[in-house]
């Protein structure tokens, strides 16, 4: 029985919870009636289950004849399936105050992703392509130095999470902008760090690019909402 994935998940959940708590002290998600902790965990659990089912279907395993295999998370979870399902579940749960809830959960979701990447050090899959940089690391028993990509990803996700959260507290950005920037940051960070990963498939680059572009679009839409309203009022 392997518990390393559970440890990684626990670190991710802890980081998500800590960020939510820290932001709550500063009046996070004002006007949002949704319990963000509950919604975040539900969306993540649904995303994980759907991602695993999609991965099973892609590898020719019938979920109806082999239902027990759904718990073999380590053997593969479809990133695209999991991300789309988690976002869809969150959108459904937050349908009454979607933008407020998305702004409220954005930085915490980034912190959760940072926690997950820290957890990848525990699972052992944290090194990437070969590197001669001073901070490059080796796998146990190897003398090949490599990029510690999970540390890069964790650091970038934490920086993005704190930057957006701090801006939310001080700058009071327009509705939708923190959520859009969080989504864009997730896409950009994964695009950067995945380029250092040793991979068989190359990773879902299109998904990350779509998240970056879509997130920037949402942020831009939110930032210009007031201008549009004013223009409409003066007509």
């Amino acid at each position, binding site marked *: 029985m*392997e518990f390393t994935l559970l440890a990684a998940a626990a670190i991710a959940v802890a980081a998500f919870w800590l960020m939510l708590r820290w932001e709550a002290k500063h009046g996070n998600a004002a006007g949002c009636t949704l319990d963000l902790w509950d919604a975040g965990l539900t969306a993540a659990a649904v995303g994980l289950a759907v991602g695993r089912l999609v991965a*099973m279907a*892609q*590898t*020719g*395993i019938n979920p109806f004849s*082999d239902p*027990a*295999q759904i718990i*073999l998370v*380590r*053997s*593969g979870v479809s990133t695209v399936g999991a991300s789309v399902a988690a976002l869809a579940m969150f959108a459904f749960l937050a349908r009454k105050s979607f933008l407020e809830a998305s702004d409220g959960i954005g930085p915490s979701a980034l912190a959760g992703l940072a926690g997950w990447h820290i957890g990848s050090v525990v699972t*052992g*899959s944290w*090194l990437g*392509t*070969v590197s001669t940089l001073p901070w490059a690391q080796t*796998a146990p*028993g*190897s003398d*090949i130095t490599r990029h510690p990509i999970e540390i890069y990803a964790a650091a970038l996700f934490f920086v993005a999470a704190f930057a957006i959260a701090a801006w939310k507290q001080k700058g009071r950005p327009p509705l939708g902008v923190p959520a859009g920037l969080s989504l864009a940051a997730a896409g950009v960070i994964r695009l950067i760090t995945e380029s250092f*990963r*040793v*991979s*068989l*498939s190359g990773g879902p680059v299109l998904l990350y690019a779509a998240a970056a572009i879509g997130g920037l679009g949402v942020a831009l839409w939110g930032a210009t909402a007031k201008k549009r309203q004013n223009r409409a009022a003066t007509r």
Partner: protein
Amino acid sequence: MQKRLFLVIAVSLLAAACSSGSGTLPSDAPEEIAYDALVAEITTSGTPTVVNSWAAWCPPCRSEAHLLSTAAKLNEDISFIMLNTKDNPTDAAEFIAESFSDTPMTHYADPSGAVTFEMGGGRGLPVTFFYSSDGESVHVHLGILDEPTLAFYLDEINR
């Protein structure tokens, strides 16, 4: 007389049922290999080698089969040896035909699990052994493989 006849028929049927299939392996069942022969194959191949101990009755082994098959197709410069361990030959042959039919892999059987044990496994299936081109053991992965781990150790043994 009738009782004796019935007894003879019953014993004959039982004997036939017990003997059916035993002793005749399916023609496409993996061939049994000894530890020394497997080590010789790994050390003399001159290529990096991955040995995966698996069984058809083991759900995690079945689950990682697609990943190993993809990796073998993408890395034809690496030898993939699938060691069917403590398994029913018919089930093994069926699973090989189903999952590895057009994959560049070598299949062997380890009916007692002794080969896997001597290689450093033996604490459950699946187990994956990674060897460099000079036959040196680089890593033993106990349990199910994920894509980043497999890709990483393939890169390690291929350098």
